[in-house]
């Protein structure tokens, strides 16, 4: 039954099928999409339980965000007078406008999470060693770019939520030593949030950052191949070295000529047994299409079920109580608040310690970790290797602490930044009438 159905599917979908292996390979080489990938890919890399395909999911989200973002650009007006109205128009008058905005919003928030989880996966599998260290740094930069992309997009609806979240965020940036005020001035295009800020954030959000992320994503993917594919195969290579085999001398061609070092074939394919590999097309291309489809469905379900937040029009004279940063920065706000020391009237702002120094140190350690990690190579490409027990635990604890801080900031902080448990009634903030 299954076989018949598949045959029918092929008949309906494919106009042509290759007669020989040569025809098959030519069909792949001639096709841009199919030629994107290596000819063969290790079975170990295809394993759901190794990578959870989180990088592919991130790429899928980037694509969804780019497409929905370009569509939103046809309606959005980056002016303080019309931005809010154009969002209202999208919600109420544009065909599928609300859906489009919802999908863009949830895909963006999901991307921040998925990119981080992807990074956590790479950490827990120790997949940043040796030549892959460069790609780890590229990944950290991509993660920061994702945060900044999300942050710049946060201002665009020009509602109270956006206005005050950016006020909080840029005020934290101001606390950086020496360069802080300059950074804030450059971000805001002045001393306070206004039309010039909106325009800056808009241009960063729709042009510079997406182009940067797409280019860096391209490089990230290219490095994955040049560094020998997923680190999952490293363990396999050890077991396969028993088989004596003359490795063919190969060269690898990059955009800039011949790259030194080991080539893809040596590391990922020919070093492995035939039985360790499958053809990328259709196995990997089908898998990638599947991941894209799953991610698209998830964002679509989120868009159908939950509306993107939109509060009242931005009002510089009325501060919401409490004003919160976007959730992925709320842990910084929480750190700033909890490191601010008050002694009988004197207040030592925690913005420098909590907002700049602590996250700065975390980021520096994260970026340089491939060179600080002294664990044996046998820990590479394995989930939670016992050799890396301590660092994995540290990473997990740090992540959990950040999540706890985010939860506290998002769910427990009420008016005047006080803690309110879900059972506690929050004081009613005064209304107009």
């Amino acid at each position: 039954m299954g076989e018949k159905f598949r045959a029918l599917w092929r008949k309906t979908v494919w106009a042509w099928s290759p007669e020989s292996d040569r025809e098959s390979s030519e069909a792949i080489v001639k096709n841009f999409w199919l030629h994107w990938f290596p000819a063969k890919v290790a079975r170990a890399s295809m394993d759901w339980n190794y990578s959870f395909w989180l990088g592919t999911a991130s790429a899928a989200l980037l694509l969804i965000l780019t497409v929905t973002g370009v569509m939103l650009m046809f309606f959005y007006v980056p002016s303080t007078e019309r931005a809010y109205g154009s969002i209202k128009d999208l919600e109420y008058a544009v065909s599928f406008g609300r859906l489009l905005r919802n999908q863009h919003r949830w895909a963006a928030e999901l991307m921040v999470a998925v990119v981080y989880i992807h990074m956590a996966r790479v950490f827990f599998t120790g997949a940043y060693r040796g030549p892959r260290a460069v790609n780890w740094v590229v990944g950290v930069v991509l993660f920061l770019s994702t945060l900044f992309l999300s942050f710049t997009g946060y201002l665009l609806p020009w509602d109270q939520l956006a206005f005050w979240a950016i006020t909080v965020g840029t005020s934290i940036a101001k606390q950086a030593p020496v360069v802080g005020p300059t950074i804030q001035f450059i971000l805001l295009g002045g001393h306070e949030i206004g039309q010039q800020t909106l325009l800056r954030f808009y241009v960063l959000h729709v042009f510079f950052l997406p182009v940067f992320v797409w280019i860096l994503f391209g490089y990230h993917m290219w490095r994955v191949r040049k560094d020998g594919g997923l680190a999952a195969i490293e363990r396999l290579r050890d077991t396969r070295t028993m088989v004596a085999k003359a490795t063919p001398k190969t060269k690898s061609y990059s955009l800039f000529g011949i790259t030194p070092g080991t080539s893809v074939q040596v590391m990922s394919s020919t070093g492995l047994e035939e039985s360790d590999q499958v053809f990328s097309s259709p196995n990997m291309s089908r898998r990638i299409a599947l991941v894209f489809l799953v991610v698209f469905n998830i964002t679509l379900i989120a868009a159908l079920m939950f509306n993107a937040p939109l509060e009242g029009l931005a009002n510089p004279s009325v501060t919401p109580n409490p004003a919160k940063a976007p959730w992925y920065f709320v842990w910084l706000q929480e750190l700033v608040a909890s490191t601010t020391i008050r002694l009988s009237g004197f207040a030592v702002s925690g913005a420098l310690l909590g907002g700049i120094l602590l996250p700065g140190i975390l980021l520096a350690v994260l970026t340089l970790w491939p060179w600080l990690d002294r664990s044996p190579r046998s820990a590479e490409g394995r989930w939670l290797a016992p050799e890396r027990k301590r660092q994995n635990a540290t990473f997990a604890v740090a992540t959990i602490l950040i999540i706890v801080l985010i939860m506290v900031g998002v769910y427990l902080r009420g008016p005047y930044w006080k803690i309110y448990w879900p059972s506690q009634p929050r004081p009613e903030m005064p209304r107009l009438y």
Partner: protein
Amino acid sequence: MADKNESFEAKDFGWMVAMSVLFLVLVAVCFWREFGTDWGSYQQEFPQLLGHYGKIEDARNFRAGIRQIWIPKIGVTDRCITCHLGYEWSSVLPARIVEPLKPHPMNDWIAKHDFAKFGCTPCHGGDGFATTVNGAHQGGRGWEDPILSRALATQYGLTMGEMIQMRCNFCHRHDVATPGMEEINLAKQLFKKKKCLVCHVVEGRGGATGAELTYVGDENPELLNFAHVKGEHTFFNWNVQHLTQASVVSPKTQMPDFNLKPEESRALTLMLLSWRRLPYPPEYIPDPAAAAAATQPSPTATPTPATMPSTH
């Protein structure tokens, strides 16, 4: 080789089919949601109603879709009329028709305010952009201009018409008195009688003892002390109680207790709430002298410029 690929192919193919089916279902849901509008049924009903009252030609020419009154110069995009279709048919449709198809009541001063020039939200509040019942009437967090519904007015012991007078005064602020705006007219009289300007600055005049009141309607209610306010914590209640007995609401205040009647403090509150920074261009602002001449035939009621600062 092929048989080993089979494991991937069979599993992934099955998932692919399942996800594709889910995708198609989701697309169907998207379309269902897009066309399942709040206004669809009202727009089906309305031409039948027009036909029933003899407007067969208009009923035939009725086209379904989102409708709006768009007045860029006062920032109005009012899609209220997408559902409130009967608004300009008061000459044809009887007033007993229920909302949203009910015609807008008509009288002399409503007739002077052309719907096409003023829209809906400048008088009624609410979210003009919205095309959903909840979106237009209930609003969400950070809702700035709640709709002045009957329920809201009743909460403060007012009728909806009286509550709306607050918004009439956006443009009629400088009239001495305006026909149809009894609440505000009372407030303006009290404002003079109680000599508020002795302590408060309004539009550059008055004493500096109290707070400046020129744009008091824009004030952030969170900055006020609600510790001694009875009832709901609203700007409205604060003002009503503060105007009646300032010493109770703000124990340290220098403001005397005027012991106003409830209707007097309500009227003054409506006027104070109307004093906001607003986008209305000069052609929307009536000539205060003309309004005074029309409504104040008695010369004794007209203030002399020497003793009274114009009007508020």
